[in-house]
């Protein structure tokens, strides 16, 4: 019981450490868009969302170093993801960790694609708005399909 809690707390702590370390070490993922999109709020917002989605994903990477806490980790991650206003129904994700991770990973890639489109498209606002809406809907749809 105690060791499971220690492992769980450790996953969240390691992820927090990465978060602050990325800012302190001027990680490109953060600092590049800060300058590149200084005058473009849409692309700046997408870059932020992409970075922080990556931060959520990082918990799954750290989780791979641990064993025997599948259920506890899934429950904790479900609560955690919900605090980021990601619309997840009370799904049973105990057996869907990999799928959950891959969906978040897809979201991250999708955000990157949108940023790329935003960089080259002249009519980027409408296209970004459309892609963003589509991504949100597809993302929610996929997460909700994980219902146990």
């Amino acid at each position, binding site marked *: 019981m105690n060791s499971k809690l*220690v492992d769980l707390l450790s996953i969240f702590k390691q992820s927090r450490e990465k978060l602050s370390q990325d800012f302190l070490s001027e990680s490109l993922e953060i600092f590049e868009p800060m300058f590149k999109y*200084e005058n473009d709020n849409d692309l*700046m917002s997408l870059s932020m969302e992409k970075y922080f989605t990556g931060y959520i994903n990082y918990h799954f990477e750290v989780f791979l170093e641990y064993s025997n806490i599948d259920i506890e980790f899934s429950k904790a991650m479900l609560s955690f993801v919900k605090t980021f206003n990601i619309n997840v129904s009370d799904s049973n994700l105990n057996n869907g960790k990999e799928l959950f991770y891959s969906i978040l990973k897809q979201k991250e890639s999708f955000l990157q694609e949108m940023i790329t489109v935003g960089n080259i498209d002249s009519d980027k606002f409408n296209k970004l708005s459309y892609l963003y809406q589509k991504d949100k809907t597809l993302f929610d749809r996929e997460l909700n399909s994980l219902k146990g």
Partner: protein
Amino acid sequence: MEEISKVIDYVLKNVEMDDSAKKLLTENLNIKINEKVELYSLKTKLEILYNYEKNYLELVKEFKEEIKFASSIQEDLRKERAKFFAETLKEVQSTLKDSQVDSKVASNWVEELVNSYTKSLDLSGGLIEEHTLDTIGRLRQEAKQEVKKSELK
């Protein structure tokens, strides 16, 4: 008390003696017997209380490590939260300033950093609280069982 008086009266019913002497004897017997009964009842209650305290202390000893553990992880989290706001955040702001990031951009990113960091700390705090409540629940449950056992002895 009344019951005892009735029993004494019954026993002395056929004894031939002066009424006033009988009354005095009844009263004396009544007092003496009641003293014994009260003492016995007090002794029983004290014994239950002693056993309860003894078992409770044993339980606390048994849960000592659990209590220490819960208190230490709570303290670690409290320290980390304090350090983040007192030191790390200042270092991050200084890094952003040194890198000449636009102040509005920097403030948006820092806001999201604080938001994400705090959510993670809060979630960890919730997990610790859940664990602590669970430990307290188990301690109470065992204490109840011990009380039941000592009452049955």
